[in-house]
């Protein structure tokens, strides 16, 4: 029986943030494991019938949510969506909530032209007020929330175009 490659593509659910690439390919049978001697906590989050497994891993106190997918299959999907992605770069930008909380103030309305860094919303979470700023210049297409509204992780707040 021929050995089947188990090479997988492992991607972060959110942007990698400081010090990290979003995705990497790993063959757990063949490649050398990194020389870390840390405790890892691994927990399956969803089993994904589409062949993509979502996993939580905590290493050295850092928590990551990762999607693991067969590398060949990931490549196919990537090609299929590339044209779509290219269109999206100039298209609308959705600004989503990264923390649950409450909208303390809305500083823009649809139609406003904004510079990069302009405050769009103030979100109150755990008693701290956090300013949410425009990631790039553009025009506000839609403000999806109102003052006083409770928001959850991932909710669309403002759409820029």
């Amino acid at each position: 029986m021929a050995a089947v490659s188990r090479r997988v593509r492992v991607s972060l659910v959110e942007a990698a943030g400081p010090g990290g690439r979003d995705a990497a390919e790993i063959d757990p049978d063949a490649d050398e494991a990194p020389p870390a001697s840390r405790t890892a906590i691994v927990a399956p989050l969803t089993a994904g019938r589409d062949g993509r497994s979502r996993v939580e891993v905590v290493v050295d106190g850092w928590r990551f949510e990762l999607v693991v997918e067969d590398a060949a299959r990931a490549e196919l999907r990537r090609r299929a969506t590339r044209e779509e992605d290219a269109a999206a770069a100039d298209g609308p930008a959705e600004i989503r909530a990264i923390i649950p909380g409450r909208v303390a103030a809305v500083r823009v309305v649809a139609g406003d032209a904004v510079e990069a860094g302009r405050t769009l919303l103030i979100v109150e979470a755990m008693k701290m007020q956090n300013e949410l700023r425009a990631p790039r210049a553009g025009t506000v297409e839609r403000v999806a929330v109102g003052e006083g509204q409770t928001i959850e992780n991932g909710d669309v707040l403002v759409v820029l175009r």
Partner: protein
Amino acid sequence: MTDAPARSTDASGRPSLRKDGGARRPPFTRLLVANRGEIAVRVFRACREMGIETVAVFSDADVTAGHVRAADRAVRLGPAPAGESYLRGDAIVAAALETGAEAIHPGYGFLAERASFAAAVDAAGLTFIGPASGTIAALGDKLAARRSATAAGVPVVPGTLEPAPIDRPDQVDAVIASAESVGFPLLVKAAAGGGGRGMRRVDDAAGLPAALDAAAAEARAAFGDGSVYLEREIRPARHIEVQLLGDRAGAVVALGERDCSLQRRHQKLVEEAPAPGLTRDERRDLHEMAVRVAQAAGLESAATAEFLLDDDRRFWFLEVNTRLQVEHGVTELVADLDLVREQILIAAGEPLSAIVLGAAERATEPERHAIEVRLSAEDPARDFIPMPGVIGDWRMPSGPGVRVDTAAAAGDRVPPEYDPLVAKILVVDADRDRALDRLARALAETEVSGIQTTLPFHRHMAVDPGFRAGPLPIDWVDEHWAEALRPRREAALEAARWAAAAAVANIPARSTALTLDGSTPWIRAGRQRAIERWPR
């Protein structure tokens, strides 16, 4: 044994009130804690040891929270927002009356420094565990405290002594003029503030109006009072504070100082006692200044006087917090006493105990070193933004010289409505070097999943050569952490990818004691997990 035994004495030589070997009668039958989380549990522990029954209060976000589980009884206050629950003094007093609690401990935050609440507790015929409402008003209002310290001859941080007229558009020029005379950069601070809430840093006059508005809005939301004032930002500086305890007869003592310089967004991250590098004389002068400020205000119960130490080794008075501090535990470990127990005894009318007086005498020559880290549900890679969620695994450290104050457990929800602090991890040892070694060991035992915590930051600090060499200035985290975190996080991410790949591939080899039992764990429901060393 005699029929009428002479009154025995305890270890400190003070006559014991124990009679015939029976348990001492508790000063209160039942006590309510007007707070949540770890501090409520902390107070309940002292109550348990003193034979006092405990009452918790809770919001709809905390129905099954740790502090509710830890109490003998619990009373619902209202919906999740603090304004409709933990800040409702009327509902809390009613809960105490309804449950027969005789005393209310406010913890820290929420109503702890609201004079009107202390007065309402008194008016209801109950005992407030803390300073008298008049003292809270005099010291808790930072502007009043600055005026009072000035009158007592204690140097205060330069700035304004009256609230900024933020609601008067015609006064904008006057505010900018006083800001110019204080000097930029400066801080806009809430008169009623604390814990960094209602505080904004301003670099120039252009940024002042927005900062005033933001600070006032945050202060109004958090404290119900939007008064703000201006204060020069002294940099570089260390944040050093003195633990005070006073009794009803007017005696006030200092129980040592804490260094809380490691901060981020004006929130303390690490605290230690004693403050490293102070001479005995500096320590004595500092404690004496703190006692003078407290005595002028007639302090009863626990309070903390905060100072900045500048590069010229001058102390500048900042404010007095008329409550138990989050970081009171490091002082307890060094001074070897229980501040909550002493607060309760003082509230019952007792004079400062022999234990307290003995600790005060030794306070200028501390013989141990304690460090606390605040484990919070925040992302240290993204500017320490709060990251509420549901705790998965929860392993806290233990062993010699380790103390953990927490209300959390596996499966608990960390609600977005409140402070993200989930646990305080404290260590104590003979000196600072050994305490840091112990801290590194304790943090290596600590594991949390489900939420991102500040654990990576604390692990880094425990072994950072700069921190080991001595205390770091207040701005250290802002200036250095963003760079320091990269290599650690990158290495963790690489290992995490491997752990994920191996777990999904279900590899039963040495590298993956990560799957459960060789079956396919991925189709199981829930959050079943495997925890092992990775890689070996």
